[in-house]
């Protein structure tokens, strides 16, 4: 079933689930686990019943509180151009199902092990081929930003997808402020390196054998594209640590791993920078990592994806993957004349 048939500029109302509903949903989801009829059971009473049947309620409520405690509400605008007429993935799913190997290679590890992660104070340095290299105090900077909510499709290279209401500013704004020189052709990003806080960085076994710090890169024109978002929040609040707090990239036309989390360095260069997954397995993860249903991953097809909506065993459906994840109209021009099989 193909849901996306409009351009992104088309608006529909009621995009964003109200927070009270997110919270309720999360409780139910955590209560249910199995996801058996998660949608049908919307009354907290039913969740309670399931809790009684299936196990302890306290652990779940504590878990939910922890996630809530680490985020703060944000104010933002909702530009019409960036709304999607697809219901967002349940917040409890998007915040408990994460690839963030710094906290462990299992998808539930980040939510479990990142709750003590210190995001204050936080600075980002911008260096390299720029006229004004600078160090930004993220939280002070954030107060001056006009945050936008953008509902983006999120496509993981593992052939699953979500729909997430991100909050942030265009990546271009922070790069423009540093004034790139004419030599700047690429932008390199780096995640915080702090093995004391990030258990995956202190143990190769926990961290999936990846070399840290995690690095990513974009061509400058990709980084300046209006869709490229420097995200500081999701679902109306600041990012939870497991989703890359306090600042991460969101590049909706690329596979999720390009969206580097917990950024501390932005470095402009004239050479294509190394990227973490490309270094680990270049035949599986290219530099560009554009979503492309015609170029398979060596171990699975990219032609379709499992959309994780409510989570649970029956909370996902399969749908065709769209070229550039459905953002073809906007980004195809960036790659004109390139062989996307070669530059995958």
């Amino acid at each position: 079933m193909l849901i996306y048939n409009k351009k992104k500029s088309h608006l529909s109302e009621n995009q964003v689930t109200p927070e009270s509903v997110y919270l309720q949903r999360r409780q139910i989801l955590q209560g249910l686990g199995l996801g058996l009829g998660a949608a049908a059971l919307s009354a907290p009473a039913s969740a309670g019943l399931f809790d009684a049947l299936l196990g302890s309620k306290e652990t779940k409520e504590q878990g939910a509180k922890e996630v809530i405690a680490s985020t703060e509400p944000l104010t933002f605008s909702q530009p019409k151009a960036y709304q999607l007429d697809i219901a967002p993935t349940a917040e409890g799913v998007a915040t408990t199902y994460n690839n963030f190997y710094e906290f462990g290679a299992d998808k539930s590890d980040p939510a479990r092990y990142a709750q003590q992660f210190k995001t204050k104070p936080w600075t980002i340095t911008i260096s390299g081929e720029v006229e004004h290299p600078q160090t930004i105090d993220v939280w002070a900077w954030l107060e001056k930003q006009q945050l936008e909510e953008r509902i983006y499709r999120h496509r993981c290279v593992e052939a699953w997808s979500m729909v997430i209401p991100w909050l942030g500013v265009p990546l271009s704004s922070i790069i423009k402020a540093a004034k790139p020189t004419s030599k700047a052709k690429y932008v390199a990003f780096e995640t915080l390196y702090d093995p004391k806080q990030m258990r995956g960085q202190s143990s190769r076994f926990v961290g999936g054998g990846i070399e840290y710090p995690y690095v990513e890169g974009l061509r400058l024109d990709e980084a300046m594209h209006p869709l490229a978002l420097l995200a500081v929040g999701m679902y109306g609040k600041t990012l939870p640590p497991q989703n890359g707090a306090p600042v991460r990239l969101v590049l909706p036309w690329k596979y999720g791993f390009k969206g580097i989390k917990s950024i501390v360095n932005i470095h402009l260069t004239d050479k294509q920078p190394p990227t973490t997954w490309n270094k680990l397995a270049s035949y599986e993860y290219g530099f560009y990592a554009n979503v492309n249903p015609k170029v398979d991953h060596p171990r699975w097809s990219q032609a379709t994806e499992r959309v994780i909506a409510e989570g649970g065993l029956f909370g996902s459906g399969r749908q065709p993957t769209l070229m550039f994840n459905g953002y073809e109209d906007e980004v195809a021009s960036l790659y004109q004349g390139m062989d996307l099989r070669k530059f995958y």
Partner: protein
Amino acid sequence: MRIKLSPKKITGLKILLHLAAILPLVWLPWAFSVGRFSADPIPELIQYFGDWALRILLLSLCVSPLAKALKSAPLIKVRRLIGLWSFAYASLHLLVWLWLDLQWGWSLIGSEIIKRGFVTLGMLSWLILLLLSLTSLQKIQRRLGRYWQRLHNWVYLAAVLIPIHYWWAVKSGWIQPLIYLLLSLSLLWWRRDKLLRPLKGLFKRQTSSTKRR
């Protein structure tokens, strides 16, 4: 060491083994309810069933060395049930993949089996286990005679293919599949004489035929 196992004891052992083999299934509802599975449990469930299929298969390969070591022939009687449980978990593993992951998308299923080496290996291993399970009835065993043993020697191939299938399928974290592969190879090493016999026979035949000339 030699232990004596009366038919009664074997029956008791069988019941215990059945109960033990059900445990991973009983664990699931509890595990879901306390959040041991993530928000997208499907890949994890696939791996969970796959893990148990492989573990139980390796256990089934322990039976005959153990029976020899303990000089207790009746122990062999528990092998079939262990093997069948391995097949049951392998089938659940396959079912979750077909149903919940690929959602019965037959063209995708077909192309994945052909295109992805690790899926091909997995399917091949499951077919071997299927064939062995179908021929595990005593009636069929008797009817097949010596061919039955030959057919069931294919389990050794499955025991090697499955850890390779596992290794090939993971994105990172090759240590677990490696451990399984080493366990499997060591169980086959135990049987090296039996496994190499056909090769020896082949070698002898060749040399004798050269002599004749």
